[in-house]
Each structure stands twice: as structure tokens, then as C-alpha cells.
């Protein structure tokens, strides 16, 4: 895995060597904790410094940041910061222990801006705050134009959130979204529960990416238990994941075109989404693919008759989607879309956005390629990307990914391996942890799981793609016309349920 590439070190080795050389006095402990994960323990006051170097100098991308409450057992809090060390399938984890009575640490967000939202969550949910440089919400300077606040209830099936827009009446100056209204406390609810119950909760984090969450949770449990998933199950997981991506992208395109007022094409995409939901129900027994993925494998098989039927259905879908996408070329719409809501690559990197929004801004990030899981190592696919970072780029990207997903499903129908559907998941060992990384339709979902001495869930932490999409949308909306705001929002299609949990 690790090694040299043309005389140049891979990011993980570079980071480990850098930490050894520059932060020798800060390192308390360092070890390899799983096949792909290295863990370095540093004191709380040095965490930000080391994390900043990993992210800004050695090519790490923040996967997640969270706090664990160990006051009862060890009288301390623990902070974990996980970094993806792409292009290698490697994860670097920085760990800090903070005393339970005075949990203060140097603020991470000043060095790693992508940690901002996650740091806020740690502060709000665990009561662990950095010593300085905290970032209160709604800290807009007063008197900067017209401000309008809407929410928490939104019209038109939109999710509950509070949005504050400051503008000069025509152009948006700043946009902030306050989340947390829909927080259901699912991670806390899973504490002490069985893995089966945890999986049921993971599937209910979000309706549109239920399978991606289930898969990330299962991967974390499997890494923890040391279980290898059989090939047919891995293939069916990729299969279901691509169907979910199809449904989500089709729904997002429909929502976007509805926001743009292109009714005929929006209706066509809404119909195509229903075709995929219908396929989901037919093949896997659930329109939103809940109950398909289980720890160790999958629960449903796809027979030959269904495969044959599916090829016909998806063939029609490919042609229909291509035709409906031509609505974007209509002159008036194309003019409105070009340059609307531009997310610069530097900003995208700063807020740590992944998935569609990152790839549309020219960042070649794809969890399926960077951290191959399920069947993706054996499949042939392109990472679709665009450079402009505007609303049109994000919409075109989804169109391209629909075709890639259809190609992937075709490949899997041709090459579906035989064998069992699941491997028994034994006892979960205590005092270790597992990480699951999945590219959902919107971006990276990261699930982190730790078991207690009885084999029940002790701690479960979720970082979903939407954590970064909301701030990315806020930054991209700056400078957009007020009337284009629904359009820009629909091009990002951020999700409240994923971020609030």
C-alpha cells in the first residue's frame, strides 16, 4: 500500500515522516490501527498545529472531526480528526485526550477551515469548546444591506432550516443557513444498542441516501469485526448504490428544472425517478433500499429474470434522460445558468466539500476511486468532472454521472459473481474502532463505530456530505442574483436530514 511513487512519497508517508520530524516533541503515541488507518496521538493544544500541517502541506483532506465522551470511564474527552490521504486508500487519524473537567483545545478551524461546522457541532452537542477563535452563528456585521430571515418551516416540501440572506436588494452579499432544527439525536440513541438496531437507525438518517448510510455503517462494523464480504454481496452493494445514485440525481435534476421553471423537463425527470424507485422496489423490496444492506453482506439477491427486465428498463431510461437533458440547452436557461453560483476550486477545498459540488469545481474527489469499497475496485468507470463550478457545471455533472451509473449497472449485470450473500458478523471487539467511507449521491459519508465490552455500540459518529455542502452553498450564493437563489440551491441540493441527524 504505502510506498514511493516515482521517487515521490505518498501523502501518508509524507505526513508520517513530517510529523516525526517536525512534531517529534508533540507525538505521544503512533501506531497502525487497521489495514488502512494510522493513528497519531498528540496533546490537545498541538492538535490544530499538526492537523493544519497534514491538511495544508501533506495533502490530507479532512474526513471527519468529532469528540467522544469518556468521562465516566477515564475522566476525559477524546477528539478524533480523520484525514483521507488520497490517492492512496489510507486514513490518518489524529487523536487528542482532553481532561474531563476542562476540555479546551486549540481551535482547529483556524488551520483547517473544513472543520468549522464539525467543531461547532462538537461544541453544541458535547460542550467541548476550543479556547479561542470560536465561530458564533449569525455573526454578520449589522447594517450591511437588507436582511431577510426565513424559516424554520419552509414551503414546498423543503426541509426545516433557518436561512438568513443579506443583500442589497438584488445581489446576495452573504447567506447563512442555521441547521440543527431537525436534529433527532440518532447517534446518541444508538449508544448501548445492538448493531442491528444501529443499522436501522443509520438507514433512517436520510431518505435519499439511505443505502449509502447503511453501507458506510456496515463497512465500519465489518472493519471492526474483521469480516470479509463475499464477492456477490460486494457486487450487489455497488449495484444498489448506483441505483440510489440514479434515483437521487434524477430527483435533483427534476427539482432543479422545477426551480428553473422548465415544467415539461422537470416532469420527465420526476417520472424517471419513479421508474428507478419502482425498480428498487421490484429488485430489492424497498423503494428507498432500506433493509437491503446488512453487516457482512446483503439480504436480497437479484435473479436472472430481473436482470433481463432491468436491462430493458435502464436502456429506455438512458435514452429518455439524454433527451430530457437537452432542456438545459434552451438559450434563455443556458444564459441564466452560466456563471450562476460559482464555487471556486479554492473555496471548495477550503470548506471541504466532496462529491458533486467538488467535482463540478474541478476537484477530482471520488470515494469510489480514492477509498475503493464494495465492488468498485473491479469496475471500470470515469470520475466525471467539470471546471467552471457554476450551477450549469453541477447540473451537467449529474447528467454525466447518470450515464456512468447506468454503465456501472450494465457492467455488474454482465459480471455478477456467484457465491454466498453474507458472511456472519461475529462479536465486535471492544476498545477498537471501524471506519466506513462511502461516496453517496451527494458526496462522502463517513461512519465511525466503536463497540463496548458487551459487543453493543459504544460510540457512533456520522459525517455526511451535506455538512460541507451547506457552507459551500452559502459561499457560492455570494454575488448571485436574489432571483437565482432557488436555482443555485437546487444545483447543490444540500440535505438537512443528513447534516442534522
Amino acid at each position, binding site marked *: 500500500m504505502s510506498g514511493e511513487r516515482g521517487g515521490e512519497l505518498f501523502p501518508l508517508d509524507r505526513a508520517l515522516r513530517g510529523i516525526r520530524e517536525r512534531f517529534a516533541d508533540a507525538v505521544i503515541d503512533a501506531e497502525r490501527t487497521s489495514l488502512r488507518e494510522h493513528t497519531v496521538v498528540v496533546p490537545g493544544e498541538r492538535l490544530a498545529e499538526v492537523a493544519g500541517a497534514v491538511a495544508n502541506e501533506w495533502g490530507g483532506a479532512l474526513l471527519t472531526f468529532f469528540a467522544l465522551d469518556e468521562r465516566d470511564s477515564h475522566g476525559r474527552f477524546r477528539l478524533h480528526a480523520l484525514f483521507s490521504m488520497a490517492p492512496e486508500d489510507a486514513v490518518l487519524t489524529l487523536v487528542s485526550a482532553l481532561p474531563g473537567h476542562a476540555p479546551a483545545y486549540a481551535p482547529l478551524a483556524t488551520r483547517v477551515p473544513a472543520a468549522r461546522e464539525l467543531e461547532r457541532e462538537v461544541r453544541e452537542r458535547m460542550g467541548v469548546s476550543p479556547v479561542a477563535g470560536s465561530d458564533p452563528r449569525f455573526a454578520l456585521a449589522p447594517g450591511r444591506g437588507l436582511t431577510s430571515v426565513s424559516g424554520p418551516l419552509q414551503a414546498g416540501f423543503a426541509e*426545516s432550516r433557518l436561512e438568513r440572506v443579506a443583500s442589497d436588494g438584488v445581489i446576495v452579499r452573504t447567506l447563512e443557513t442555521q441547521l440543527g432544527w431537525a436534529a433527532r439525536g440518532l447517534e446518541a*440513541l444508538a449508544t448501548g444498542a445492538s448493531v442491528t438496531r444501529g443499522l436501522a437507525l443509520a438507514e433512517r438518517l436520510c431518505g435519499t441516501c439511505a443505502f449509502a448510510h447503511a453501507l458506510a455503517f456496515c463497512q465500519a462494523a465489518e472493519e471492526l469485526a474483521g469480516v470479509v464480504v463475499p464477492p456477490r454481496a460486494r457486487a450487489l452493494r455497488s449495484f444498489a448504490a448506483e441505483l440510489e445514485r440514479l434515483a437521487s440525481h434524477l430527483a435533483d435534476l427534476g427539482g432543479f428544472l422545477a426551480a428553473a421553471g422548465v415544467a*415539461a423537463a422537470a416532469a420527465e425527470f*420526476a*417520472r424517471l425517478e419513479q421508474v428507478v424507485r419502482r425498480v428498487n422496489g*421490484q429488485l430489492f423490496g424497498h423503494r428507498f433500499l432500506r433493509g437491503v444492506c446488512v453487516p457482512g453482506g446483503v439480504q436480497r439477491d437479484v435473479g436472472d429474470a430481473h436482470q433481463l427486465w432491468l436491462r430493458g428498463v435502464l436502456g429506455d431510461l438512458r435514452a429518455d434522460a439524454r433527451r430530457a437533458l437537452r432542456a438545459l440547452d434552451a438559450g434563455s436557461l443556458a444564459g441564466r445558468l452560466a456563471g450562476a453560483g460559482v464555487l471556486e476550486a479554492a473555496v471548495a477545498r477550503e470548506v471541504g466539500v466532496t462529491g458533486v459540488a467538488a467535482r463540478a469545481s474541478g476537484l477530482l474527489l471520488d470515494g469510489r476511486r480514492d477509498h475503493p469499497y464494495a465492488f468498485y475496485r473491479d469496475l471500470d468507470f470515469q470520475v466525471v468532472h467539470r471546471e467552471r463550478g457554476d450551477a450549469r457545471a453541477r447540473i451537467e455533472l449529474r447528467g454525466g454521472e447518470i450515464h456512468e451509473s447506468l454503465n456501472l449497472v450494465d457492467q455488474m449485470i454482465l459480471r455478477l459473481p456467484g457465491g454466498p450473500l453474507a458472511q456472519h458478523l461475529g462479536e465486535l471487539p471492544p476498545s477498537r474502532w471501524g471506519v466506513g467511507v462511502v461516496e453517496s449521491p451527494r458526496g462522502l459519508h463517513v461512519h465511525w463505530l466503536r463497540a463496548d465490552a458487551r459487543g453493543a455500540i459504544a460510540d457512533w459518529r456520522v459525517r455526511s456530505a451535506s455538512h460541507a455542502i451547506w457552507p459551500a452553498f452559502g459561499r457560492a450564493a455570494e454575488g448571485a442574483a436574489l432571483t437565482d437563489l432557488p436555482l443555485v440551491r437546487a444545483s447543490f441540493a444540500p440535505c438537512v436530514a443528513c447534516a442534522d441527524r
Partner: protein
Amino acid sequence: MNWEALRCALLRGTPAGRDPAPLTGGLEPAAADVPGEIELLGEALRAELRRRPRGVLRLAHVDAGSCNGCESELRALLGPFHDVQRFGVGFVPSPRQADALLVTGPVTIALEAALRAAEQAMPQPGLLVAVGDCACDGGFCAGSPAVRRGGGAVRPADVLVPGCPPSPGQILRALLAAMGRERVLEGATASPPGARR
């Protein structure tokens, strides 16, 4: 081109309610997709609505901490495949215009006041419809200190639509039950999912 999409949709001739992906021989339809269900339920609903003063049912929706699954199915009801507007069911943006308020999600503590305000803004008598397991009794979220136990936190719901999420057909069935038809389709419904209190 916009016209192109419209022309193709018209030429394809997929009427609303007809199966978007017909099954080939040897395949049994999944339990969630009863062929022709939407048409039957919709016509029955239209007949019920005709007896009402305005002949229509206007629904407003409140997300009280939902996972998006129920919203997705509600949106599907409006989409070209189910298209419930042809039966006299419409969605309005504000509870002030609504005959019924659809609640999704387990009602988080943060949103409880907002839901209560929306419920009081609805002209009385208005129906409170709990859509999905979460809204019925908390569902999978029950037991979390961050949530109440469904739409009943505000006032007892008039209609419960269980399911995670309920299919468009189940939602229609529950609306029909709310309009006063207890048994919707003889034989077709083993257990009516919507029950009027």
C-alpha cells in the same frame, strides 16, 4: 429543448397511473406496486370530495424532523406518474390555505413550537395527518431525548399513515379514510393503514 421533452412525453403516451416500467413475463409485481391502485383510490377520493363544499382537498406540509423519505413520496404524489391533482387533491404552501396539515418526522423539540403555530394557523376544523412511522408514534426515533413522539405531541392526529416511508398508494388510502371511507376497496385492502380516530 423544452418542447422536445413535452413532445416525447405526449408521444410516448404514458398516461398518469399507468406503470412506468412494465414487467416482463414471469415477474410478479412487488407488494408496494399494486397495478391500477392509484386510479381506483383516486376516483374514489374524487367521488368523496365532490360531496364536500368546495370539492377539493388542500394539503399543507410541515417537516418536523423528517428524513426526506416521506417528502419524497409526497412529491411523487404530485409527479406525472401519480398526479393526484386530477382527483382534486392539491398542495398549498401555507397552512392558512389548507384543509389538512401533513406532518412528517418525529417532531423534534426544536420544531415543536413551529408545528404548533402551523397547526393553529390552519382554518378549523382542519385535519392533522401524521405521515410515516416517525410522525405516527416516533417510529425509529422514539426514545431519543431530542424528539417528541410524533405529530400527536401537538394534538392527537386525525389520521395516521404508518410506513417507512408510506407508499403514495398508502397515503392516498389514508386520505380516503380521512374523508370517511373506512373500507376503501373490498378485497384489495387486507388492513387499511389509515384509521380515523
